[in-house]
Structures are given as structure tokens and as C-alpha cells.
């Protein structure tokens, strides 16, 4: 086959490629500046924010789950996937019971150190969970990692990928610079 035979698809393929690239630069915007919770209450979100930030805290190299707004990522997933929402609701209830047993207070009243202690307890059998709190730990950890690695901070600070010259999908990841907070 020579170039003449292939030439006709040049235009089609190139246009498709350009369109794709163009869309990368000018995507259909969904404003994340004022993300509204859809699956969980403010209090549930605050607890998830604290728990995920304990799982993935900020350090000298990169922000943590809070900076990456991982709890909002979980809210978004839970809103669209009912089974995930139910699993988180069940898990939060199980952690609430554990909190009362261990500290005599509901989960919402615990400080960061106490929440960390709950996670310590719930992670003792990681990989082979036997009860509700242990299952919740695995669920929480999976989504914390997933939300973090897909975030702007996760991609650029933690994984070390360079931001897009025009911003890494500005306004489109929950934690893009200039968004929310």
C-alpha cells in the first residue's frame, strides 16, 4: 500500500485526534468550586475526612487525603454506587459502636488520636477481616488510596507527574488549584 491509498484516512484520523486534544484543553466544565455533598451528611463527611486523612496524612513531600478532598471523592462515588454508599453507612455505624465501646463516646466526638486508635484496632486482621469494623477499615483504605491517587495532589505531588502546562484539568479535579477550599 502506498501513501495515496492511505491518504484519505489522514484527514479523518487527524481531525479525530485534534478533536480529542482540543477536548482535553477545553473540557465540558463541571464546577467543583462549591462541591455539595450528595451521599453523606456534613457530619459523616467530616468523619470520613478525618479518617481518610489519618490513612493518608500530609507529609513533607505531598499533601494528604484532606488536601486532596478524598472524602468528597468518596461522596461522589457513594452517590452513584448505592452498594458503596450502604457499605460506608454500615461501616460508620460499626465504627460508632466501636467508639462507644472503646472510649464511651460516639465516633463524631472522638479526636484524631482516638480515631487513629480505632483504625489501629480495625486493621489488626488486614487482609482477612472478621467483623464490621475490620471490613470498614478495608473499604475506607481502598477508597482513600483510590481517591488520593486520582487527585491533583496525588498525581502531581505524590506520584510526581508534571502538571499539564495549562493546569491539570483546572476546575475539574476536586483539589485542582484554585478550586473550593
Amino acid at each position, binding site marked *: 500500500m502506498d501513501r495515496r491509498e*492511505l491518504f484519505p484516512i*489522514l484527514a479523518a*484520523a487527524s481531525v479525530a*485526534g485534534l478533536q480529542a486534544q482540543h477536548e482535553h484543553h477545553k473540557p465540558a466544565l463541571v464546577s467543583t468550586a462549591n462541591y455539595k455533598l450528595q451521599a453523606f451528611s456534613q457530619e459523616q463527611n467530616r468523619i470520613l475526612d478525618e479518617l481518610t486523612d489519618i490513612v493518608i496524612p500530609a507529609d513533607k513531600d505531598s499533601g494528604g487525603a484532606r488536601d486532596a478532598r478524598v472524602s468528597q471523592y468518596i461522596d461522589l*462515588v457513594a452517590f452513584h454506587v448505592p452498594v458503596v454508599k450502604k457499605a460506608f453507612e454500615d461501616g460508620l455505624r460499626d465504627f460508632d459502636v466501636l467508639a462507644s465501646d472503646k472510649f464511651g463516646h460516639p465516633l463524631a466526638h472522638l479526636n484524631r488520636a482516638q480515631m487513629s486508635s480505632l483504625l489501629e484496632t480495625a486493621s489488626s486482621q488486614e487482609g482477612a477481616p472478621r467483623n464490621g469494623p475490620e471490613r470498614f477499615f478495608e473499604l475506607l483504605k481502598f477508597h482513600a488510596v483510590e481517591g488520593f491517587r486520582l487527585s491533583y495532589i496525588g498525581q502531581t505531588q505524590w506520584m*510526581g*507527574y508534571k502538571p499539564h502546562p495549562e493546569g491539570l484539568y483546572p476546575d475539574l479535579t476536586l483539589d485542582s488549584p484554585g478550586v473550593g477550599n
Partner: protein
Amino acid sequence: MVYDAIVVGSGPGGGIAAYALCQRGLKVALVEAGRRLVPGKDYGRDLPPLDLLARRLKEGKSGGFDSAWDYREQDHFTPVGDRPAHGLLKALGGRSLCWAGHTLRFGPLDFQKWPIPYDEVAPYYARAERFMGVYGYKDGLSNLPDGEYLAPVPMRAGESLLRRGVARLKRTGRAMDYIALRKAMTTGKHASGRAICQYCGNCGGCPIDSKYTSANTPIPLAMKTGNLTVFTNAMLTRILMGREANRVAGIEYTNPDGQTEKLECRTLVMACSAVETARILLANRTKEFPQGLANSSGQVGRNLTSHFGLTVLGLFPQLATRNRSDDAGTGYYHSLLTGMYWDKPNPNFEGTYQVQCGSGLPPQRLFYRGEKGFGAGFKQELLRKNICHVGMNMQGSLLVSKNKYIDLDMDRLDRYGIPFPRIHLRYEDSDLAMAQDVVNVSEEIIRAGGGEVMTSPGKVRSEDLVIDSNHWVGTARMGRNPKLSVVNVDSQTHDIPNLFIGDASVFPQYPEKNPTLTNIALSWRMSERLADKMRRKEI
């Protein structure tokens, strides 16, 4: 209108058949059960912005990255036995939209059990490589012949350390090689005009059409001839026979409105995949063919095989400080362990295997997720181990046996009233022995390269094995004896002279190499044979 040829299925085999037949001046109808997908729109964004994530979740897809994979059928076969899987994708281009692009020739030794030699297929390999745009190095291996390549893509740092391990083992007399992969992605200017790869790694749904697909290369060219008519959202429901009992007259299909339509043809090319082609043939029974069309031999659906595998992960701590964004690339796998048991079979198992290798921290996925605990230490270790990891993924040829086959599930009909295919899979002792060898060899290579084994199945059990859902072949195998095979050396069915098979169903033996290039080369060859036979009025 009576078409010279109807091609059913627009994947790798069907797409090239449509192109080759149109080039020969035949009037062709290409019938595809799915719709046209637009790269960069329907799939293929190289990072997951929120709107994309929301859309994916709303559509019932997983989070993460956008891929043509998401258009796979979800409930389209009945699994029997050891967890068979089948990756059917109904869309213009079929699974060429989501294939990984690995483009390897079968070698002369592989063709020894075929009724045609390597030299017969080699010119079609060369033509296909030029047409597709394939990158790679020329490695000079005996049974993985070099092709015609664009500029190569090197292996990543971790994989280079695996190569060091292989080199050390080779010095002790072991037969093996370690090479960078060859893929159908444009790394430089190509006659197709497709965009040059940007190494985003989202090859399961290339957003810029750098990867070869039937939809971006052969089908547009075939359209340009003026000889092609494409029917999308057209599900074949019946093959229509002519007045002569052994002659196809056309097909019946269901259009997007749910109405039944007919197309007439002089020849029919089935290119729906090894599972779907067998299913359609088995489901079309006539008085003359009570076991299904072209199945007087009883071989349709038999001789089923695929690739199967497992994964061993290694760790090379010396990579911890490297720039991880260097790990972007053409998908995860950049290299290949090959050259084992080609001319000296392992006494413990039949067949051969290769091991596809990747490493580091490509942006799409964390390949190591097994880190225990939480907190600052967990965060650091998870990152470090992903940066330092290598992944060795077995691709072995599954033993052909009476325990692996496709038949029809008469209790489950699809919405067109066609029985679902049942895929029967049982791993045999030979399969387990092969997998055990992979584990042992992979661990050995990691250690020889200066690394440590991070996760490994250890002693292999059947439950550890994963079938390759996209590599099924063999269900309408090629042969010279009509009692033992379905098609002749021209991929023409023995029973029905104007019925041809243009997909990997016809492979009579399966080596460890990826099937797509051979599928395309054979389908191209079949198309030319078909056109020649029509010209000579032999059909």
C-alpha cells in the same frame, strides 16, 4: 442488492477483510452489532477529571480511567468450570478498540503444526505491519521473527533490571530472551496519518487514535473505495441458506429499531471472534447441517484454547529515587520475557509461554496495592514499592483438550432469541505445571537481576490462574482433512464453499504469542483467496 461479500464483525479480522475485499473491487457489506464510538469522547481521556468520573459512575462504570473496555458486554455467555471469561465488545472496530496493541509474529516453529508454513504467512505479516504502523526493535530471535517497524519504545528502568537477570541466567546456559515489546502504535510519521503516541498509557481506549484499530485505519480506507456499506447496530440473527443446501444466500439481522432485515450475498465472512463465530454457526442448524452450519466434522466449538496466566511482582529498591513520571508509556507492559521452550519442550507441560513485564508508576494504576497498615509510613511505603516494583505477567498457551470447548446454553437466550454460548474451561495438570514453571523462573530472574520477590503465588493452584478473556482461538480450526477441521487452508469452510472465517477461530495451534497480528494477516490472506476464487468463478 446482492453484495459480493458480507463481513460480519468489524474487529481486527473483519476490519481488514472489509478493506482487502473492497480493494479488490468487491461490493462489501460490513455488519456490526454495536455502534460507532468516538475516541476522546466515548472513551479515552488520559486523566480522570471530576466530570468524567461522575459520568462513568452514573453509567454504572467503575471510577478511574476511561477505556473502550467499558463497552464490553456484561452478560453474554454462560461460564462452566474454572472461571472462564469472555471480553466481547460490540462497537465498530470491536476489540481492536481496546486491545493492548501487542504485535508479535508467530514463528516458523509455531507453524509446524499448521497446514501452512510460516513462509506462506510472512508476506502478509509484513504487509500488515506496514499498514498498521508497529513500533519495535529488531531482535533477531529465531521463533519471534522481526518485522517492519517504526521507532521503538524502550523498556522502563525496572524492566531493564529484569533483563539483567535474564542475561545472567543466559550466561549459565538457560534458553531465554528479554526484549522490548512491539506494538501497533505510531511513534513517528506513518502513512495512516494517525497521531503520534503521547505515552499517556491509556491504551485500552487510545484518545488520539495513535493505536491501530479497525475503526481508524482499514474501515475508513475501505469506505473511500466506494465499495463498502457499513451497517452498525445490526445484530446478525440468522444465516440464510440458498436453494443449494451448501450455499449461503445472505443474512438476517435486527436493525436499531428492532426490525428484522435481510441482506443477500455471494459470499459470507464470519469474523465475530472465536466464541461468537462458533456460537452463530452452532445456532444455525438446517436439515443438512443438524449440528450447525459448516459443522459436519463436529469440530465447531471444539479445540478451544486461549492464553492464561498469573502475576509475580518483584522489588528493586535501587529504583526508589528515580523520576517516576518517566514511567508514563504505552500501557503497562513495555517488555517481554520470551524464547523459552521453543525448540526444546519442557517435559512437565505441553506448549510454551511468554511473560509480559511492566514496572514503575504509570499514572493509570497502582500495580502494587498490598501494603498493610495506614498513616505516614504506609503512604511512603506504598509509593516506594510501586516505584520500585516490576510485574511479570504470564501468558501461556492453554492445553487443548476435550475439557475446553464451546456449546450452546439452550436454557438462556439473548434478546434476539439466540442461545448464549457456554464456555467450558478446566485447567489440566499440564497447565498447572506450566504456571509453576513461570513462577519459579520469574522469581529466579528477579533475584538474578538484584531484586527481591514481593508477591508470588508460590505453589500454584488452579484458583491462582486467570484466563485471558480476549485471546480465545481454535473453534473453527484450519486443516486439510474435512473430518478433523472446519476450514481449509484458505479459511474457507469445507462444507459451504461460499462461507469463510476471518477471525482467530481458524488457528489450528496456538503458541504463546498474542493473536491479533496473525488474525489480521490470515484474514487479509483469506480475503485475497476469496476474491481470487470469485474472479475465477470457483465460488
